[in-house]
């Protein structure tokens, strides 16, 4: 949190940094302050009866961390796993969650004015997890409200009782 805030503070008043990544052919971005680390994909331990986008759990230096494949969740691209597959470890509400993406592209700085609202209809993506859209180097970047997504019922990463506590 601190490093990112320090970097952005001298530049502009409402400029924020986002980490952009690739899912299939689409560019997504999340608030960089939620990113703990980026690492290569490694085999997980499967969890029974979990939805397909939860790949399982793995050991992150002693913590048992769930891994979510956003490609499956958002239904974009092909869920292939090779040496180029990337896992972004997120740190949200004291929980660590890894998300599988096709690749990490860049850190982008955006002011509030640059974040545009999504089209009102015609998009299947659940707008409650969307912060907005932005144009970066002539391609559209989808800004995801990752905190909301991680704690949402849709991902089922959190027990109901716990998610109530987190929301409150």
């Amino acid at each position, binding site marked *: 949190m601190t490093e990112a805030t320090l970097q952005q503070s001298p530049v502009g008043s409402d400029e924020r940094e986002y980490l952009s990544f690739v899912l299939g052919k689409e560019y997504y971005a999340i608030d960089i302050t939620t990113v703990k680390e980026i690492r290569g994909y490694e085999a997980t331990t*499967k969890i*029974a009866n979990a939805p397909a986008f939860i790949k399982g759990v793995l050991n992150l230096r002693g913590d048992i961390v769930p891994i979510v494949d956003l490609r499956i969740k958002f239904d974009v691209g092909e869920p292939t796993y090779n040496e180029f597959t990337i896992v972004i470890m997120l740190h949200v509400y004291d929980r660590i969650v890894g998300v599988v993406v096709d690749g990490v592209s860049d850190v982008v700085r955006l002011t509030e004015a640059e974040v545009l609202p999504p089209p009102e209809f015609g998009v299947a993506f659940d707008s409650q997890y969307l912060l907005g859209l932005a144009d970066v180097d002539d391609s559209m970047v989808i800004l995801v409200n990752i905190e909301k997504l991680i704690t949402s019922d849709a991902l089922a990463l959190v027990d109901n009782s*716990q998610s109530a506590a987190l929301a409150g």
Partner: protein
Amino acid sequence: MNVDVEQFHAVFFDESNEHLQAMEDLLMTLDVDNPDSEALNSIFRAAHSIKGGSGIFGFDALTGLTHVMETLLDRARNQTMSLSVEIVDLFLETVDTLNATLQAYKDGGELPSDAINAGIDRLEAVLGSTGSSEPVAQAGESDDVLAESEDADDGFGFFDFDDIAEPATAVDATDDLFGDLAFGAEASTDNPQAPDGKETDDISGFGFFDDEALPAQPAASQSEKSQPAPVTPKQNVTPIAKGKAVSQTKTPAKESGSIRVDTYKIDGMVNLVGELVITQSMLSMIGNEVDGKAGEMLQTAIDELQRNTREIQESVMSMRMLPVNMTFNRFPRVVRDLSQKLGKQVKLVIEGGATEIDKSLIEKLVDPLTHLVRNSIDHGIESPETRQAAGKPASGTVVLSAAQKGSSIIISIQDDGAGLNRERILNKAMENGLIHSDDMPDSDIWKLIFEPGFSTAAEVTDVSGRGVGMDVVRRNIESIGGRIEIESKVGEGSSFNIHLPLTLAIVDGMCVAVGDQIFVVPLLNIIESFQPRAEQLQSLSNDNVLWIRGEYWPLVALHELMDVEGAIDAPEEGIVVLLESGKKRFGVQVDALLGQQQVVIKSLEKHYRKVAGVAGATIMGDGKVALILDADSIAQTCQDALKQEACA
């Protein structure tokens, strides 16, 4: 005074709890006709320390009550007043009131003012009846006299004596409190009920309050010097934050310094050591692949590392361990009160109180044990007349014992009473519709008393008989990974045996392979494992059933339950592990057994959520995560699944 006193509150509460426990223990063992003066002194000092501390922190309700009590105790130890059973009872009640008051201050709850005032009145009544028209002033006077002789509580802190005659040491605990405060100079607490200036003598040594201190009192420093010879610089007691007087189990002659450490820190260390163990086994695996001379040297180094890690692990785990006496030491009081109330004669024997057990278990054991002990006295032990008629000694015996067996602790509550009544339990169970046949072995019948709402007591007393107890007892014990067994013989008594794991952080497990995954089954649940023969396998509407020694067992295929691909499908080609949880017994089909190993339990819920059939996860030697199975939850999951199928 702009020092933040609040930060010492927690310490004061802990200390006072220890003092009250020490007082209770000593009062319980006090011989009324010929009281041991050392014991009386210890009780006095404990009361005195509470008074002093509560005065500092402004807990006036405590100060008032302890003051009167202290005055009485002081007379008792000076033999200006003779003790009686009634007075000891009154003291015990006062200890209870003090406990309640302390709790109220701690939780910020409502003070039991009525009880406090009643307590003060009753103590003062005793005070009035034992002579002396000016009780308070006199008390001050006698304090003064005593300060010269053996007033060990003056100048508390820094010093402690390992006095053989005083294993429970109230003094010890005094140190704790004032060891945390600053000290040196004399000071006075603003004790509203101490008109006599000399009273301050015995609360000197609090330093810390210099700004409102009285002029220095020579008596205090004098008494510091007058302490008995073997003064040991002592750095303070108990390895845990909320602990009680651990010093009880210390051999008095042994010099041992100790520090009070937050449990949080110890837990952090336990976790880190868990990591270290994992890293070490990773290293060993890598070490096996290195050839030649370097490999040999590496192997030696790894062996060394392995030994060291194991020792670190053991010593870290031992930091969490406390003697089970911490739970047991409340029972003399429970037994005394209850046997008086019920008009029974009961002797309590405590064995193996020094057996060590994880701190978190200690706290959770209190309720179930209390219930079982009360149960033994209420239902087990007969009235003296009945006992004599049956040719038994009039006084019944309850044995509370703890022992370590391998990696589990067995705590048993054994009485020589009437034993469980098979007929009555059966009748009751029939009535409640729990069973439909009385053709059951005793051991199965005894288990019935753990069913909710089950009580065979003819009438409900305020001691027991409402039938809410035993199922809660079992649930409590199972929630800490234990189980309970009953042995009973009519006319000879019953025995409740609680099996507990040594610790909650590590579990002894059997690693099993299913497909390419590894699962850990807690050894506690495993009855046996074997490769089933075709004739042992039966099919019941397409579900597999095992036929073992005249019984049909449900068989759960782990690869189906856990959704693992590539596992062996035919049961006779795999291995069946027979599991036993709370009340369910079933077989689990796996591919192979990989070996037995201690694993560190990690929470899945910390970053994820609860998973059906899984108790937690652990990290194996290669860094991979393995899930630890939860037998109870598996049984439940399968049952729910079957019900759904049946409904659909």
